[in-house]
């Protein structure tokens, strides 16, 4: 894959990268850093990509690793406990009011172990198998987390926002 193709692939994955980074690190500055690190890391390791058809999945796994790396480095910004419990305050997420939907906020307030599989599967369309490989957990664990995330989300949206 040459630089032009790489750039085109990254741009087509940009929205997905942003959503995934947002779901892990929360604010836009960290999203930008994680995305930039992931792009540079991917370009450096491009020769390790075995099949171009899996570029987006491969890039996403690198992005997830970069996000976690960033969180470790910036753990003082959001406490580890808050991160693990969800609890991103709206202003921390830096979303304009008109974009700060109830659904988005509740997804972001899921615990990390439910939030990230949820976003990867239901927002970005990755398969159970792909998510299992990205997060290095079993496929059964992915399914259980997806089930629980939907359960939690449904209760929240019904209880607090009155969705029928």
């Amino acid at each position, binding site marked *: 894959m040459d630089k032009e193709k790489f750039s085109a692939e990254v741009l087509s994955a940009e929205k997905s990268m942003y959503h995934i980074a947002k779901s892990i690190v929360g604010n836009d500055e960290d999203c930008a850093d994680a995305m930039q690190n992931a792009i540079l890391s991917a370009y450096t390791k491009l020769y390790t990509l075995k099949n171009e058809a899996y570029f987006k999945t491969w890039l996403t796994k690198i992005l997830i690793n970069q996000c976690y790396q960033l969180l470790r480095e910036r753990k003082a910004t959001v406490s580890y406990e808050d991160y693990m419990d969800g609890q991103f305050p709206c202003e921390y997420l830096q979303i304009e009011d008109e974009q700060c939907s109830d659904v988005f906020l509740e997804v972001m307030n899921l615990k990390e172990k439910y939030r990230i599989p949820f976003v990867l599967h239901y927002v970005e369309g990755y398969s159970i198998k792909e998510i*299992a490989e990205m997060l290095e957990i079993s496929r059964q664990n992915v399914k259980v987390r997806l089930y629980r995330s939907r359960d939690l989300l449904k209760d929240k949206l019904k209880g607090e926002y009155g969705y029928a």
Partner: protein
Amino acid sequence: MHNQDKWTMEIGEIDGMMQIEKEFPIVPEKIHGMVLETLENLEKENPSMKKGGNTMKIKKRRVIWAAAALAAMFGTTVAAAELFTWNEQAADYFNDPPKEVQNEMVAQGVVMEQNDSVTDQGITVTVKQTVQDDNRLYILLDVQCEEALIDDNSGFDKWNVITKDPEAFNNMGASFAESAPRGKMEEKNSRGYYEITGLKTYGREWNEDSITLDLGQFFYYTYEEEGLGTSHVIDGNWKLEIPLGEQTQALTKVYEPNSQVMVSGMPVTVKRVEVSPISTVIAYDLNDVQNVIDTAYADEEDVFLYELQLSGFRYDDGETVESGAGGGMSSFWDREAGEDVYKIGLAGMIEPDRVTAILLGNDMTVVELQ
């Protein structure tokens, strides 16, 4: 474990209340600008370019089995006619080792053919094959339903592996094989392969010449045009006896590199590495690990040191095989031995005799073994 009430809950009720992707924010202009700028400056910013090409180039590949290496790895010859043929799904799971390797694994007792079968509620479950070593067990089931219910979201809930030692396993997972149709996107199948993988508990004596697999509930999804799908369950009782014979240590290589890797600027000693075709054990010096955690992660709980995770192997010809914990991973602090022990089920099958180094973390830090 979920109860039936939870599984039968109409998850699909949230269908239609949202199209989730649209609920997420669009990419801000400043981030889009950063992406464009990064791509434009790739060659300037590429770290390998900055280092004048000194970055180690790692040529990776899917496991390719070399005939010459096979002879070294497997000293015995086995008459193929005496052996059963591996199930194609099990072979695919372990990266399609060649017939010679498959036969040798059977002869070594690593791989066993199985045939117990049970039918309930219109679903027939048959055990096809097992693969095991000291650290790990893989079970392949054939699941056949009267109707097309199977996709990659379906599976068995309320399942249990019954062993003499109730703590024989400490990490198990199960799912339909990756060949299963993708949820909402493809037509369901009425038949599929179901794979169960488990890691044997570290430090316990394995004494299970047979195990019982007890499956209690099958779940599947139906999908509407929009939304997440609705779950359904079929309660049943599928109990299967699985003879395992003796585990084998024949193919495991043990090394004591006593070399160090740097984590957060502090050294961690790699005391022992055990490599088998389907699993790997890495033992780090517990004092070193504790020092890293106390110093760099003093205010955190559940610290996970990515730098110590297995990423792959380097073979004797310099090529590397990327192989993480696709078959599960567990860790254990053995205070008596002073070791932080990671037990890893490999994503495919590797050739232990050809391994000269393990690779750790995102940076693929090299730990020489020989």
